[in-house]
């Protein structure tokens, strides 16, 4: 793919940044309808760059990785909304076919998800300042409402900034890799991702199981998956 074929005009960029704001807000602040899940956000990213199938493929892998990080209690988990959008858009922009671009898009999405987690923590510290002093806010409920809404908008701004900062560099880096053809080491690269998926699935299965007795079900599930593959249903 040549640089001229790459479609990332200002209009698409603005839409992506606005989308990043909404996706950034959705995970925690409002309305938690889960458009921030990578399966959705990466598909949106792919759709923005003209290839939703490519976006969803990236989203599917990110989803399997994200599933082993349920947000139980104070657990840290990747902020996959803006990250998924950037990853899906990057792979779509690269043409949505090259394996090198796919591997890099997924890795970028995962890394950006954890960068997003750091920004979430910074925002939470900022919220402490916004929502204080408590006595003053209690005396003026309108002020409490205003500050609460400001905190939500800041979360949106956080998501928008992540997309604004990382979308173009990510698209450019992933597009650079498209030209990298398959090699002997490429075989191991694909194997690494597949084994990573298996490991992630195992860890995700454990987090949803009540105890360790669920492991045979994981095998049965894989067996069903194998039947679907061998049956030509995929």
């Amino acid at each position, binding site marked *: 793919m040549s640089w001229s074929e790459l479609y990332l005009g200002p209009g698409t960029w603005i839409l992506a940044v606005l989308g990043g704001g909404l996706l950034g807000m959705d995970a*925690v602040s409002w*309305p938690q*309808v*889960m458009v921030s899940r990578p*399966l*959705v956000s990466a*598909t949106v990213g792919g759709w923005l760059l003209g290839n939703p199938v490519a*976006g*969803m493929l990236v989203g599917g892998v990110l*989803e399997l990785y994200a599933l082993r990080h349920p947000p*139980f*209690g104070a657990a840290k988990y990747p902020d996959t909304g803006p990250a998924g959008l950037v990853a899906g858009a990057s792979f779509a922009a690269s043409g949505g*076919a090259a*394996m*090198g671009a*796919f*591997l*890099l898009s*997924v*890795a970028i999405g995962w890394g950006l998800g954890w960068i997003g987690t750091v920004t979430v923590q910074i925002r939470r*510290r900022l919220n*402490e300042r916004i929502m204080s002093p408590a006595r003053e*806010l209690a*005396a003026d*409920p309108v002020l409490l*409402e205003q500050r*609460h809404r400001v905190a939500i908008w800041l979360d949106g701004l956080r998501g928008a900034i992540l997309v604004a900062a990382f979308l173009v560099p990510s698209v450019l880096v992933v597009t650079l890799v498209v030209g*990298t*053809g*398959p*090699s002997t*080491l*490429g*075989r191991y*690269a694909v*194997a*690494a991702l*597949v084994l*990573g*998926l298996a*490991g*992630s*699935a*195992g*860890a*995700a*299965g*454990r987090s*949803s*199981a*009540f105890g360790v007795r669920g*492991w045979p*079900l*994981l095998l049965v*599930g*894989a067996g069903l*998956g*194998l039947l*679907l593959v061998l049956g030509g249903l*995929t």
Partner: protein
Amino acid sequence: MRPLRSDHLTAWSRTFAVQGSWNYTTMVGTGIAYAMLPLLRRIYAGDPVRLREAVERAMGPFNGHPYLCAMAVAALGRLELDEVDPQTIEKFRTALRGPLGTVGDRAVWGQWRPICVLIATLSFLLGASPGWSVVVFLALYNVGHLAVRVWAYATGWQAGLEVGRLLKGAWIERWAEKIWPLNILLTGAVALVLADVVVEQSAVSPAPAALLGMGLVGGLLAFRFPRQGGRLATVLLVIAPLLWVLGGVVG
């Protein structure tokens, strides 16, 4: 004064933003106060001093699953209406935090969300369009999401102080204990089909049978040792594009 239906509707809709100002001091406490305000304004209409005291109580530290916080908002509003003394309200808040977090985390984050995500992913891998798969996920997930929020709010308002007792063994908890096998089955199936799609897409063929065997062993080991397995999976995710690029450079 008793809250009107419109007050309840506003308070319920505000529970969607209950984590909006989550912070390390009060956690979701300020969000609880934000959601309760329509109720408190009606209950303490014309009495700014008691309204201020009630808002201050509502802003105290609190945590719980965001969807089930609707239950806390309604139950705490009910206690204010019933003029329960502040010390009892404080004890009630403290007692409610644990169950609301545990039940919601296990049922919604632990089961419902993964199941919906996996069904949508599988539908895509089996040939459904991305748009259709996204719609399946969002529609399926949010039917459950809205049902939980409505049930939580209605139960909280009706039960008041009794809400903790009702939460123990509630349908949501029983349901979570029954549905987890489906979650693991789907995880295994999606992982295998997704891996197949990835291998099919690559121009290199990394010995499918050997890869399948290693993947099964790796998956089971990660199930037994999830922390280590998860970390290794992340390392492999990062290594994969590096190997690809390196292979392209060295040939």
